[in-house]
């Protein structure tokens, strides 16, 4: 990892990521700001502090991997990737537009993206495959992934969870973005997920719950995962729409951008004042 990145201020980067999320989705007149804003600190921390990667050599075989299983949080991931130097930020303006590189959901042809996702419940299985390959090849890279809480309605998440535990994939570290909201409303009203930490632990994972907006807690949880003998699930309590008052905890902004210029500016002011 480049040392220059290590010294950058995470709070400032996260602010820029949030502004980019709000602007990209406004410009595209579509997209998913809510679950991107909830994931911002985790992605920022991973790409600017944790992942052993090289933007000049995105396919370096020994790199750490990251899988965005909740593949609609592209505004956050693409913003972070461009700020980290994987591609030029001018590409962000093409997000969700015809004939552009940056599709609505995450695709592996984008520099820095390891795994394609979008239809929910698939990325975690892909992450299991990546982590398993490291074991077969006796390599030391780690596989990080992020799944959504709404995404955890999908049965395949639990197939993958069984698989990772059975294989004792200690090189797999997963963040569960527990923002309590999915497209149609609040997760516990739609399909009770309950105590996800306990559920994952009973599946054979190491599991903990943290404040997903605290860089210190994210760092501590990753440190804690390092000596695990099994996969680690970090349930990250987050606020959907975090940083933009009218989007916060509002299911309406799962998949809807700021509706007009006035609201866009209000959102940007909110973020600046965080």
């Amino acid at each position, binding site marked *: 990892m480049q040392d220059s990145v290590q010294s950058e201020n995470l709070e400032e980067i996260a602010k820029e990521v949030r502004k980019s999320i709000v602007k990209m989705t406004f410009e595209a007149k579509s997209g998913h700001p809510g679950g991107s804003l909830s994931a911002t600190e985790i992605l920022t921390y991973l790409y600017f502090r944790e992942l052993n990667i090289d933007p000049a050599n995105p396919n370096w075989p020994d790199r750490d991997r990251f899988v965005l299983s909740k593949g609609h949080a592209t505004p956050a991931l693409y913003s972070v990737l461009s700020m980290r130097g994987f591609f030029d930020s001018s590409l962000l303006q093409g997000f969700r537009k015809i004939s552009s590189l940056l599709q609505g959901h995450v695709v592996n042809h984008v520099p820095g993206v390891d795994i394609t996702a979008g239809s929910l419940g698939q990325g975690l299985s892909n992450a299991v495959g990546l982590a*398993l390959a*490291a074991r077969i090849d006796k390599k030391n890279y780690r596989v990080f992934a992020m799944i959504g809480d709404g995404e955890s309605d999908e049965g*395949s998440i639990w197939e993958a969870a*069984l698989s990772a535990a059975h294989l004792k994939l200690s090189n797999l570290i997963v963040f569960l973005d527990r923002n309590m909201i999915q497209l149609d409303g609040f997760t516990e009203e739609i399909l009770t997920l309950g105590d996800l930490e306990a559920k994952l632990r009973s599946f054979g994972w190491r599991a903990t719950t943290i404040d997903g907006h605290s860089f210190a807690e994210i760092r501590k949880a990753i440190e804690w995962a390092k000596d695990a003998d099994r996969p680690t699930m970090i349930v990250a309590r987050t606020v959907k729409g975090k940083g933009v008052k009218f989007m916060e905890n509002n299911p309406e902004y799962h998949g809807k951008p700021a509706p007009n210029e006035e609201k866009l500016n209000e959102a940007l002011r909110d973020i600046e004042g965080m």
Partner: protein
Amino acid sequence: MMMSTELNWLPDLINKIEKKSVREAYGSTLVSVGADKSVVVLDADLSTSTHTSMFQKKYPDRFFNVGISENNMMGVASGLSWTGKKVFVSSFAIFATGRAYDFVRQSVCYADSDVRIVATHAGLTVGEDGATHQMLEDIGLMTGLPRMRVLVPADAMETEQIVRYVYENRGPFYVRLSRERVPVVHEAETFKYGKAETIADGDDITIMATGILVSAAKIAASYLKQKGISARVLNVATIKPIDSDAIIKAARETGRILTAEEHSIYNGLGSRVSEVVTETYPVRVQRLGVRDTFGESGKSWQLMDKYGLNPMGIVNGVEEMMKVTI
């Protein structure tokens, strides 16, 4: 001279024909390509049926049984492939293509992953297990996916060649195999990717068959010859990309085409052939297959007779088509 009643598989015909297991051919070929350390094989609790267990025995460190979770299996396969593994996944056709369809679509095809799906137990010849396990729509599901190539070997020898072909080439591929031992068609290795193979030449009609029905087409053609009908027989082992040149040639030179497959008449070989014919050189095409119904329990060859997927069914189809003047 052969009697037309002898053209049913049962009670005698099937016992007279030499048959070989395509699943064993798959398992043994996997073992041979497994010398390459980048080969990884996944199965979903059916390894002793699909015969990936043969690979497991030889290379236990590169075989993973993911349990009864076909969706997860496709995702894991994709993840493995993006580290440079040549991945084979196996299950029954019903689960590999039906249950796991969205995973095959996104994690394998849209992601363009280097994954080969080799499914066994396709079609009616699953037998006693019945309709829940008799996949008759898989060719349609898989040919509809961008990037997916679809291969259906006619016998054990062609299975070996096709498994080697998909090992040597980058995925995604779908290879369709039977549970039942399949009549031997080939004496030598003839498979050419993307090319229909001429099993018998003829100029009155072309029978285009795939998989387990290629041998039936061969038998039907020799019977028809005795009755003065000259039938060309093409073995279509590559359903996608389809051999358009062979189809157009058949349409021009024989004027009639009968397709034969152990699959629904919708979205299988018959549909692919019809598409090419209607777009380029319209002639009459008749499809022999399962006519928009589910299967049922029974012995494999009993079922094939009941649904008309036998030499007799092909002869009847040809004779009907020959009544129409062209």
